[in-house]
């Protein structure tokens, strides 16, 4: 097996070319924006609610998503850019007297942020504030997930406001959602296993970058990052070349995960789309216990499986290859140009120049 851990380490953590989104560099900027939004909402929401003759609701904020879970990666050039996810919780019931429709509450948030940047859009799961940078229109963004908080609901659960402008009331939805519970579920097994947790995060980032490189960013063509995270939740096992010292073997861990994912593709009924077909499921281990891939079409699923098989082939080839240079060339094909390929000269043990001798052979 070619030892390509050095290259995986560089791919993951290198200050310049590594895919890991540190919590301290680029994210500093995102965190600042997040804080501006928090302040802006606190300042402007009372006026907005008053304007509509509605009682004032004071928002509470919680980080969520890959930022919170520390599984974020840098975006590809030309992709959707950096983002940070922010939960905004309101003490207002999802139903009953005085309840907001999901869209109305999102509109209040949008209005309170009005003028903050050029582009603020209500998307189905969130309100998104886009930022310009160096002339790039939507260089990065903050996703605001709007919740009806558990304290206001008789079942004690948080509900996410789902719906965009133009959605009829029936298309809008208060959807039960528990990001903190999900994070707890995902990381519970690593409570006293630092190495396993770190490798889990690295593997998540590799899979997300693989997704960004191999799928166009438009629509539901690509499996969602949270889906890949869930697949890893079920299929990841810590893998080391030296267990005693926890010398990591990320290639081995990836191979096991991808093998596991491929083995879970099967012909099954897809509830949401009411169809039978060959698919992979990424079931939330917390409410609403739904399949995160439920919106992918079967054509998209087929492409997902095909690309996973290509990934497996590349990983297996790298495992079989003796020459790290060749192995990394293969890995670069699936993980993109940020995956480093060592020069041949960097892969050799330093040796003395040989001396040829004349010789007879028979």
């Amino acid at each position, binding site marked *: 097996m070619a*030892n390509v851990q050095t290259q995986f380490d560089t791919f993951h953590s290198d200050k310049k070319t590594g895919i890991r989104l540190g919590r301290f560099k680029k994210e500093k900027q995102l965190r600042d924006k997040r804080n501006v939004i928090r302040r802006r909402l606190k300042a402007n929401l009372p006026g907005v609610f008053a304007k509509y003759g509605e009682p004032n609701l004071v928002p509470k904020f919680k980080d969520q998503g890959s930022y919170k879970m520390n599984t974020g990666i840098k975006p590809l050039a030309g992709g959707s850019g950096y983002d940070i996810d922010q939960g905004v919780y309101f003490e207002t019931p999802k139903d009953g007297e005085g309840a907001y429709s999901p869209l109305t509450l999102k509109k209040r948030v949008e209005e309170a942020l009005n003028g903050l940047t050029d582009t603020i859009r209500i998307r189905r799961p969130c309100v998104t504030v886009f930022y310009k940078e160096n002339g790039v229109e939507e260089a990065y963004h903050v996703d605001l997930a709007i919740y009806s908080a558990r304290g206001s609901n008789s079942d004690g659960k948080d509900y996410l406001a789902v719906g965009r402008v133009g959605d009829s009331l029936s298309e809008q939805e208060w959807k039960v959602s528990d990001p903190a519970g999900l994070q707890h579920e995902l990381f519970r097994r690593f409570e*006293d*296993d*630092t*190495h396993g947790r770190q490798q889990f995060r690295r593997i998540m980032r590799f899979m997300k970058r693989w997704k960004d490189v191999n799928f166009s960013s438009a629509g539901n063509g690509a499996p969602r990052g949270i889906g890949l995270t869930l697949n890893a939740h079920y299929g990841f096992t810590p893998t080391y*070349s*030296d*267990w*005693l*010292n*926890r*010398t990591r073997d990320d290639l081995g861990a990836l191979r096991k995960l991808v093998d596991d994912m491929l083995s879970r593709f099967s012909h099954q009924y897809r509830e949401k789309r009411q169809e039978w077909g060959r698919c992979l499921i990424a079931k939330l281990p917390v409410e609403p216990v739904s399949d995160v891939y439920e919106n992918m079409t079967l054509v998209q699923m087929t492409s997902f499986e095909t690309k996973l098989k290509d990934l497996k082939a590349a990983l297996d080839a790298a495992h079989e290859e003796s020459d790290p240079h060749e192995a990394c060339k293969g890995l670069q094909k699936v993980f993109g140009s940020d995956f480093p390929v060592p020069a041949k000269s960097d892969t050799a*043990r330093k040796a003395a120049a040989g001396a040829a001798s004349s010789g007879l052979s028979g």
Partner: protein
Amino acid sequence: MTTEALEAWLSVATATGLVLPPGEMQPDNDGGFRITTTLAVAGLSVGILIVLAHDFPKDAPLVLVQDSQLLGRLPHVFRNAGVVCYSTSEGLLLNRQQPETVLTWAVKETIRTLEEGLGTSQVAEFMRELEVYWRQLGGPEVVNFYNPSSEARTLTSYSAKDNLRWLAGAEQEMPPRHRAGNKLLTTIKEKATYLPLLPGTAFIPPAPNEPFWTIDQLRELVKPTLMAIPSKRRRQLFKSGRDWNGLLVLAVPLVGHKSHVTLLGIAYTSLKGVHPLGERGSAFDLKPVQLLRWERSYLLPRGGGKMSLTPKKVLVIGCGAIGGHLAHELSQTGILYLTLVDGDRLSIENMHRHALGMAGVGEYKAIALRDELQRKYLYAEVTAIAKPIEQALDAGEIQPESFDLVIAATGEATLERYLNERLRAIAGAPPVIYSWLEPYGIGGHALLTRPHQAGCLECLYTSPNPDAPLSNRALFAAPDQQFSLALSGCGSLHTPYASLDASQTATLAARLAVEALTSSQPESPLWSWKGSDRELKAAGFKVGPRYKLTEETLRRDAMRYIAPNCPVCAFDSNTNAATNHE
């Protein structure tokens, strides 16, 4: 309780009559109280004396039967002043806050004990505690080495100087120091007869204040047992010889136990020189004898139902701090056959961390340890080889295949790697445990390896990365650190560790040894104990990644050390050595 408090409390307790029947109450000289009263026991009125010591209710009340008619004739009532053993105090928790419940409980238990004694189960009660009653009879003491069997047979009783007497069947039953080879002992031999009584044989033992059994009483008692022995065999056993003096050993099956027996000794003097159970005459004098249970089957640990460890042969290589403790631990588990190998003498610097202490200083460790073990453990059969293991192996003094287990604790990694390779190559080699400890109390390790099974000491030195510097991957301390301190110039090197670290490591290795020997451990695990890293860090050293794993993870990963590319144990796999092509 102060006397005043006790007095005040007693006057209330007796006045109400709830706790105790009314009786006479007197303070005694020791700050306690004596209460004389009568208890209704199975319709009888029995006079008793209750003694409350000054620290009652910390100590349970003493209850004495005052009625001489019952004295010593009831089970659990002892001849010395008629003390009633109404309950075993072991494991008993007295509630000091409530003296009345303690007293009430004592009275109730006394009544129950006496009623049971007077009831129909009287004989059974005596039988249950037969040993205790026999002991009250007194008489000379004889050490028993014979492992009780279910067959009647002739034994030998030995007498040596200092009134030392013992009893055994065969020579090898005796501990090494009692055997004939031991020149210190000049012995007189006498005949002894071992007679296991038929199950169900029940009787009331002689009372201490009465004459001992007559020959007729004894014959009556053993009659059913003798009838069950074929007459030919009986004639052999009780053949008349020069039996002027002899010993009878009655093995009485313990009620409710299959294999346990009570041994009763009876010394006889035969005026005609005939066996008391072989002839009709009455010219015999019988006296009780107390048999001390020193036999193997009684003394050696039974290991909690596990396979017996006593016949196992263990080779211990290295008798230093770990080896010294380890040999003791192994002996304590009942392993008798140890062979100790070490070519070094114990230096004074190591006195405090060696199990031998000052007693071994200046001596060959192997020999001093052997002597110590044989002194401490009656049945230990220890062989000492005071030379380096390589020499002992080369000279053929040690056949590794003749042992059930080898344990190496030499503290020399290079030597042990050599042993690992050498021992694995021997046909029929036993499992080997390697055990070593780390400096500054950060931990210790024990590795069990088995021939023909993946996983060996060399695996720990086999990194997946061949460019990595050679080091033991199991170590908690970061690699490439030099711990040895030169205490006095360049002469003696001293690795800083304490006796506790050595004994904890020895305990770990001993546990692994027991598992390996009892087959409860079929695998080849690496066990480690993890201590504090405080001292190590304070001394300016670093811990490695393995130290940061939790103890639970270490346990779970016990088999993860196996290196698929280990040059010693990785036999055939497809990545391994190519065999000839033709």
